[in-house]
C-alpha cells in the first residue's frame, strides 16, 4: 500500500513516495472535500492550491428549474481529479447502494466513500449500518473507502470484509477539534493492511501534520479549508502540513526524554 521512499540522501523522493488504493496511485496525501465553499470559483481555487488528486463529491437531484446553473464538473474537472462520490445523507444500506449506483452511472467509476452517520449533534459513524452498507456495496462491485469509528476492531472487520481503505475520524465532522484520539488512530494504523486515512475533525495544518506523523497514508478534510478565513491560503497550509507530517513520520522522531540533554558539547570549554 505504500510506495517506497528512502532515498540515499534521506529526503523522501516525491516521485517514488506514493500511496495506492484500489490499484490507483496518488502522490498527494491530502484528499479534500468540495462542499461548503462560497462559490464554485473558490472551490476550484482552493482545490488547486491543496495539490489534491482525489476529491469527495456528493450526489443530489438536479435543480430542473435552473438546468443551466454551473456544475461542479465545470470547475473541478473529473478528468483531472479522481472523484470519490460519497453517501452523505444516506441512513441505510439501500439508500447508499442506490446513491452510489447513480454516481457510478454519472461518472463511470467504482471507487466510493461510504459514510453512514448517526444523529446530530455528533454525526458519529453508525457502525452497524456501515457494516451492512459496506457488504451490499462490495457485493455490487464497488471499491469502498469507508468512514468509520476510531475502533480498531471495527476497522479490522471492514478491512476483512474487503473495504479498500478505512477512514477513522479524528473528531466529529466539521468540528475542527483536531485529533481527539491519537492512540486509537495509531492502533488502527499499526494493524491495517489497507490504507488508513484520517477523515474528519482536522481544523488546521498542524493537526494534518500530526495525523501524518502517526503514520496514516493520507488525510481527508473539507471544512478546515472551506471555513478558513482565506480558504486558498489554508489549502496551501494543509498541503505543506501533510507533507511536513509525512517527512517527519519517515524521518522518525527522536525519543521523548524527561530530562534535558545538552545539544552543545561539554568538552573544550574555555577556562
Amino acid at each position, binding site marked *: 500500500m505504500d510506495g517506497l521512499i528512502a532515498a540515499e540522501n534521506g529526503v523522501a523522493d516525491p516521485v517514488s513516495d506514493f500511496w495506492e488504493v484500489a490499484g490507483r496511485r496518488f502522490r498527494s496525501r491530502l484528499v479534500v472535500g468540495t462542499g461548503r465553499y462560497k462559490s464554485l470559483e473558490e472551490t476550484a481555487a482552493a482545490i488547486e492550491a491543496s495539490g489534491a488528486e482525489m476529491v469527495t463529491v456528493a450526489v443530489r437531484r*438536479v435543480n430542473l428549474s435552473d438546468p443551466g446553473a454551473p456544475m*461542479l464538473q465545470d470547475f473541478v474537472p473529473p478528468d483531472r481529479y479522481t472523484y470519490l462520490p460519497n453517501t452523505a445523507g444516506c441512513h441505510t444500506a439501500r439508500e447508499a447502494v442506490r446513491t452510489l449506483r447513480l454516481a457510478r452511472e*454519472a461518472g463511470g467509476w467504482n471507487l466510493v466513500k461510504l459514510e453512514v452517520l448517526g444523529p446530530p449533534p455528533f454525526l458519529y459513524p453508525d457502525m452497524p449500518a456501515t457494516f451492512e452498507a459496506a457488504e451490499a456495496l462490495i457485493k455490487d462491485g464497488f471499491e469502498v473507502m469507508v468512514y468509520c469509528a476510531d475502533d480498531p476492531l471495527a476497522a479490522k472487520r471492514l478491512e476483512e470484509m474487503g473495504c479498500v481503505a478505512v477512514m477513522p475520524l479524528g473528531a466529529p465532522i466539521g468540528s475542527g477539534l483536531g485529533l481527539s484520539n491519537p492512540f486509537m488512530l495509531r492502533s488502527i494504523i499499526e494493524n491495517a493492511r489497507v490504507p488508513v486515512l484520517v477523515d474528519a475533525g482536522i481544523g488546521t495544518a498542524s493537526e494534518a501534520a500530526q495525523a501524518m506523523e502517526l503514520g496514516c497514508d493520507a488525510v481527508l478534510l473539507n471544512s478546515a479549508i472551506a471555513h478558513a478565513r482565506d480558504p486558498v491560503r489554508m489549502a496551501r497550509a494543509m498541503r505543506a502540513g501533510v507533507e511536513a507530517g509525512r517527512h517527519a513520520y519517515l524521518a522518525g522522531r527522536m525519543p521523548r526524554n524527561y530530562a534535558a540533554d545538552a545539544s552543545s558539547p561539554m568538552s573544550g570549554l574555555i577556562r
Partner: protein
Amino acid sequence: MDSPISITVNGEPRVLDAPLALSEFLTSAGLDLRKVAVERNEEIVPRSAYGTTVLGPGDQIEVVHFIGGG
C-alpha cells in the same frame, strides 16, 4: 391522439403531451446528458438507453448530478 401522461421527476409532478424518449425529455429540460445520471422507478437507466427509454404513465424519474460534498 395521445392522452396526457403524468410522471414524477425529482419529486415534482409533470405532464407530458405524448410519450417521449428520455433523451428528448432531458434535452428539452436543458440538461447536459453527459453530466447527469437517471433512475426510472428505482432502476438505473444507462446513458446508452436514453434514446430507447420511453417515459410512460406513473414513471418516477430521478435526475442527479455531482455537487460539492465532504
